[in-house]
């Protein structure tokens, strides 16, 4: 009896230790929560974190914000404007008639303001905003990292004897490359034509996967919500859309405008089916765009919400902040592991669906 209790204790000891460490490490979080301002607006914090930004916010000490200022590039009424985002003083000031919007559709975007520096100019024309925002920097960083990683791997492959076992990075990435080839490209497109789509599929897979993972890293240069930004997923979906239609063959177009095996009255004089087919061609990439964006943003929001919970409860009572922080941290650890899985899964799904669309674009004739 006694022995069995001891053995049970011994078997759970590592997990007890782990949990104790987590609890102890998460206690200071409550202290930070206490040092913050009393009126904590969780919604604002969460949305600001998932949105793009003109500066790269690093951390706050007391009331002071530390962030990396990024270049703002604007073309307004034919005139270019170039200045650092530090001119906005974390969005609190205007600069030469421009300010960061706070409301509605223009929230977090540069808008034209009146002379008082706050009121949006109702007569303002469209601002072409090509600023190097946080997400642009993150895209540049991940692009550079991708090129650095895979060009290096490519070099090691062109040098290596083909019989040699891959070592180091190639050893890690080769199974993923084979996965994309065998489980995505060949599966969805078929043996005949998968090769022309391989570069795109591999690039899009690793781009999404890397950015998803970087989004989980809470410190610079990670932590930007790149793949949870609709602009990024929009561009990726457009690449899929254009690739699909660039390579689409005769059978695909015939299917769209004159679907075989369908009664003529559905095509003429009112082209019901062609319209549906054409709508489908746009809906497919649209769904790709929304799925990736929504999944990644939702994941970030859940993590941010759980983190905010400490601060919300901490602003009510310091004891509640202390009490909730270990539970939250345990949940956050679990969620981060889940997000690693989701990072892979979303990259896989985007790539797989792109491959399916390519497969539909290049069917064998008569299919």
């Amino acid at each position: 009896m006694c022995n069995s209790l001891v053995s049970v204790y011994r078997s759970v000891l590592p997990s007890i230790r782990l949990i104790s460490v987590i609890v102890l490490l998460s206690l200071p979080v409550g202290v930070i929560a206490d040092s913050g301002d009393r009126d904590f607006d969780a919604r604002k914090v969460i949305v600001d974190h998932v949105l793009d930004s003109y500066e790269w916010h690093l951390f706050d000490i007391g009331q002071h914000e530390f962030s990396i200022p990024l270049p703002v590039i604007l073309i307004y009424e034919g005139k270019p404007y170039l200045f650092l985002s530090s001119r906005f003083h974390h969005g609190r000031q205007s600069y030469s008639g421009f300010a960061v919007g706070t409301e509605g559709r223009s929230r977090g975007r540069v808008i034209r303001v009146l002379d008082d520096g706050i009121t949006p100019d109702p007569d303002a024309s469209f601002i072409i905003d090509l600023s190097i925002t946080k997400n642009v920097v993150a895209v540049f960083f991940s692009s550079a990292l991708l090129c650095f990683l895979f060009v290096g791997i490519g070099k090691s492959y062109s040098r290596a004897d083909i019989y040699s076992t891959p070592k180091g990075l190639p050893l890690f990435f080769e199974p993923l490359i084979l996965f994309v080839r065998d489980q995505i490209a060949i599966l969805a497109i078929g043996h005949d034509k998968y090769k022309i789509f391989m570069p795109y599929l591999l690039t899009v897979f690793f781009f999404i996967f890397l950015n998803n993972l970087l989004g989980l890293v809470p410190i610079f240069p990670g932590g930007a919500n790149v793949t949870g930004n609709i602009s990024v997923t929009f561009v990726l979906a457009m690449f899929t859309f254009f690739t699909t239609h660039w390579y689409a063959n005769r059978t695909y177009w015939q299917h769209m405008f004159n679907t075989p095996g369908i009664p003529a009255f559905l095509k003429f004089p009112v082209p019901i089916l062609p319209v549906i087919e054409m709508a489908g061609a746009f809906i497919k990439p649209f769904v790709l765009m929304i799925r990736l964006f929504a999944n990644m943003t939702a994941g970030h929001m859940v993590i941010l919400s759980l983190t905010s919970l400490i601060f919300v409860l901490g602003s009510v009572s310091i004891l509640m902040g202390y009490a909730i922080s270990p539970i939250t941290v345990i949940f956050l650890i679990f969620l981060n592991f889940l997000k690693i899985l989701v990072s892979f899964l979303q990259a896989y799904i985007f790539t797989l669906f792109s491959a399916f669309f390519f497969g539909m674009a290049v069917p064998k004739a008569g299919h």
Partner: protein
Amino acid sequence: MELLMPGLGLVFWMAVSFGFVLLILKKYAWKPILQVLNQREKQLAKSFSDARRIEYEMSQLATLKTTRVAEADQAAAEIIAEARAEAERIVAGAREKAKEEASSIASKTDELLEKYKKEAMQEIKGQLSTLSLEIAEKVLREEFSDRDRNLKYVSRLLDDVAIN
């Protein structure tokens, strides 16, 4: 709502950098990697089919070997049996010949013996007659040397004749 509005700047920069990444990786990463993977797979498939073919050939060779060995064994057995029969025949022939020779030698010997015996007998006979003549002569001479006894003997013979 602000979450769902694509921003022009990010779309532009994203399209530019993704396009560049795609082009660079296509040329400098995916091409060599996929090429090597393809080559390796072809080599593997070839090695595999080679291995299978060689295995098949080996099994063919093994069956061939067993049949050849069996044939050779049989041939060897036949040769040995033949050789043994030949040897036996030779031995038997030799024995026969030896026997014949022996018997012929024996018969010749017999004949010779007979001949020598006859010749010996002949000679003995010849010498015997000479000897007996000589003996008889000597006896007679001896007999005739004693005149008195001969006379007595003749007189006794004559007495007998006279009685008759």
